[in-house]
């Protein structure tokens, strides 16, 4: 399964055309297949701003640099370096995704000059204490979900397919925390522009909105994503800037030794 930064992605390119021309209306699985197949990048890097906002309108802002590289079709590696705030500047976070076991996660603390391994507790864990889980930012595995196409809708002027994804097995729900996800997928870009996540008990939990997509190397990327936790009334916003695709990020970036060097 999984994910990593293919995430941002949920991209799609030429496929749209093919689908549009086919006289047969695609079903939910076909649409999702199209969406997922578009993450054909090898590596990427850029700046990431993570803004967390509480119901009391307090905010926390983290400025980061990130590097990501595909390890295999469904596995990737990611390095994040915190730039600001100052007291955590230099803190670096390395994640190596594994297909069949828990991901490896390491944190370099400059104050201790030491790398600490963080035990990953499932994909449902929160990414940097945001409303995004590791699962959300990773690449979903097609077969984890059963898809059902719902009636098309228009979201903020974009014509969208609406696909309901239900967990294929109880384990998926347990792993991800989601029993069901409804996605609105833009017909023009094959990116998710809106999604609603349902918790284990089937209650509405979070909503995702994607106000901005950009095309890099012919691939559409979601460059601004806003996740709102309805139950906690907490919001996380990810803004990507200066995305660079396939520039040949060196593989050594994604090692503990590189991390240790600070």
């Amino acid at each position, binding site marked *: 399964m999984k994910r990593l930064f293919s995430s941002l992605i949920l991209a799609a390119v030429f496929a749209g055309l093919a689908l549009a021309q086919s006289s047969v209306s695609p079903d939910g699985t076909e649409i999702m297949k199209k969406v997922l197949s578009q993450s054909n990048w090898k590596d990427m890097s850029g700046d990431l701003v993570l803004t*967390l906002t*509480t*119901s*009391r309108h*307090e*905010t*926390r802002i983290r400025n980061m640099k990130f590097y990501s590289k595909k390890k295999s079709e469904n596995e990737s590696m990611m390095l994040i370096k*915190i730039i600001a*705030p100052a*007291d*955590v500047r230099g*803190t670096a*976070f390395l994640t190596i995704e594994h297909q069949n076991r828990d991901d490896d*996660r*390491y*944190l370099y*603390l*400059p*104050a*201790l*000059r*030491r*790398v*600490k*391994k*963080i*035990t990953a*507790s499932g994909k449902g*864990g*929160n990414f*940097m*204490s*945001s*409303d995004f889980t590791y699962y959300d930012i990773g690449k979903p595995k097609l077969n984890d979900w059963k898809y059902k196409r719902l009636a098309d809708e228009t979201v903020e002027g974009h014509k969208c397919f609406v696909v309901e994804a239900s967990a294929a097995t109880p384990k998926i729900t347990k792993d991800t925390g989601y029993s069901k996800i409804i996605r609105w997928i833009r017909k023009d870009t094959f990116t998710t522009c809106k999604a609603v996540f349902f918790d284990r*008990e089937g*209650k509405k939990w979070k909503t995702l909105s994607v106000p901005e997509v950009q095309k890099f190397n012919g691939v559409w990327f979601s460059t601004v994503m806003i996740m709102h*936790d309805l139950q*906690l009334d*907490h919001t*996380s916003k990810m803004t990507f800037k200066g995305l660079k695709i396939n520039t040949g990020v060196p593989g050594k970036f994604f090692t503990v*030794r590189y991390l*240790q060097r600070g």
Partner: protein
Amino acid sequence: MASYFRFVIRKAGWVLALAFIITLFLGYEIKNLKVETDISAALPKGVPAKRLYDKVGKIFPSRDFILVVVESNNLFQTRVIAKIQALTKHFEDMPDVYSVMSPTNAKIILGTKEGIDVRDVLTQVPQTPEEMAAYRKRLLSDNIFTGNIISNDHKAAGIMLFLKKNIHAREAAGEVISYIKKNKGDLKILATGKPVVNYYLAKGMDTDMRRLFPLAILVVFFIPLFRFKRIKMVLIPLAVVIFSVIWTFGVMALVHSPLSHSTTIMPILLISIGVADGIHILNHYFSNSRFIKERDKLVHFTMMELHGPVIMTSVTTMIGFLALNTSRVTSLLQLGIFTSVGVFFAMILSISFIPAGLSLIKVPTQLKEAHGGRLEKLSHTYAKILIRYKWAVLIFIIVIVLLSIAGIPRIKLESSDIENFPPSHPLRLATAEVNDHFAGSNYIDVVVEGKTPGYIKNPFVLKKMAMLEDSIKTLPYVGGAISLVDFIRRINQVLHNNNPAYYRIPNETETETTRYFDAATGKWVHETYTVSGRKLIAQYLQLYEMSGKPEDFANLVDYNYETAKITAFLRTSKRTHLKKIDTWTRGFIKRHFDGIKADITGVSELYLAVNDLIVSGQLKSIFLSLFLVFLLTALMFRSFTGGLFNVLPLFFAMFLNFAVMGWFGIYLNLMTMVTSSIAIGVGVDYAIHFYHRYRMKFTESHDYENATDRTMEEAGVAIFINALTVAAGFAILLFSEFKGISLMGLLITLTMVWTSFGALTILPTLFMILKPKFNSVGGKQ
């Protein structure tokens, strides 16, 4: 007034119909009446304690918690843990719950070989003994939890429900309690915490109302019936009191004023007070029926004779209650205002509904003999004793007053919302249990207010917080404390090979050693360097956040690490204990905090503030009402000494009440303090009646002893019957669920005894000894 009463008698049917219609309308409104038990609603906005409480409420997402305790001799068995997990999940899903902390969903910080592990203590309910043992070990490895979600003896589990703000915490508590009841099976599951207290308070208020109201109705029905022996007649004043209660509650509902713990006693007050006028009117109606045979004339004559005193005594009663308004405590304010409104309604009904009612029923025929006799004889004997032993009586009274004064210093300012409940109440049992096994069911918060974002991350701030937290834990009745400090210390230790020496807040500058593999030499290199504690702390938090949820620390520190709180769990809700902890903490902050701004808040703090407000406010209101009553009676009788004589029995009653409290260990608090105002408002009536009649009799005979005897027969009996009825009505409060209210009932009942005794004994004795000049009736000098 004469033509008014003629009108009322002529249109009697209409008057009754109108009264019924108003009653139906206002009675229907009562369905909108709300109940408010939240102490914070009782405080005026300007009070510092309230301001801080509200401010903290804005910063932190939750402020009330419910502690659900699951007890078992063997906690660590699959069945019990499964139950705890099921409860936890259910509570997490309750819309009013912000977060839940329980032994099945807690996050533990574990040191591992390579690093640190912040993980859920439990992912699946352990099925095998090995799994269970591992779970037990994990849970107990982190001492942050002992006393909070796991009892000190490991025999009970605590599930802490942090409730959202702006919800009805009391109703959430009700839901929790009924859910526990349905799902506890054979386990012992209890609930405590302020919302639970408030829930039981509201429930008890409800039971009280349902039980005491009918009892009071019975009392004010049967005592007059015993004297007047005519059901139809006795029903008239009874209708007056019931109507006035309904009208008052209806008006409260109309103006959206909720019932509070203080206002629940209002129906009993209104019944007891409101019936007095009716009894008075009936009494005279009966006496007059000996001379006037025609019904309408009889009613008209009686009303012309009595509307003055009825209005006068009602006005003094209203003043007594309105004086409660000097207290800034909202619930008392409401009690004052609405009881006055109720007394006003009773007065209006007494001079409309009663004459109208009387004019529609038959004049009693056979009551000349039924009337009086034994009581009148008794009154003569009593007058004789007073006349003969007036000096002895005076000395007796002086001795009583001196004894009373001696008792006053013994009065203890004390209250406890828990001890207000009967000893066998589930809340009392649960609280005792929790106080035995856990850190406590009550709490105070010490709030540290920083000046800039990130302020709390400074070692010097956290060190002071740690110092306070460690010291406050050693105080009596403080069972434990929790703050961000505990997490920082824990992480600091875990990241230093679990070395207990590192269970502390990092210093401003720390010396750290690290080692790294030097590829050039192929050797491990050890390196020592210095780093700022602030950076260490910030990165510890970052580390925790990496595995945490967005608001894991939300109840300990605000989002920008600007304001933090230390929550100390308390095993007491007694005012004196709280006050000691409060004073100690304030002193500690003053001595050690070097300019770091910190203050105390929490519901307990509000209780202290409310109590202090009441006591300071109440003395003011007592003197104000005494002064107003003096002024009013002085004006009424156009005599300065007349005013003095009228408030004298009130002073006497007040002294005696305080003496009873001092000698019998009844605590002075919100409830018992209110009795003084009630005593003044209601008790002055007897003095007014006695003084009024005595002056009349004295003007006739110019003989103090003769006037004493005559007054005793005419007014004395009426005062006695009246006081008896009112006292019996108030005595109903003795049957309340709540100790505070039943003590209040006792004190008010006693007050009726003291004030009537004062009027019937002190006044004539003083008159006979001091021989004051009485101005002639009509008020001219």
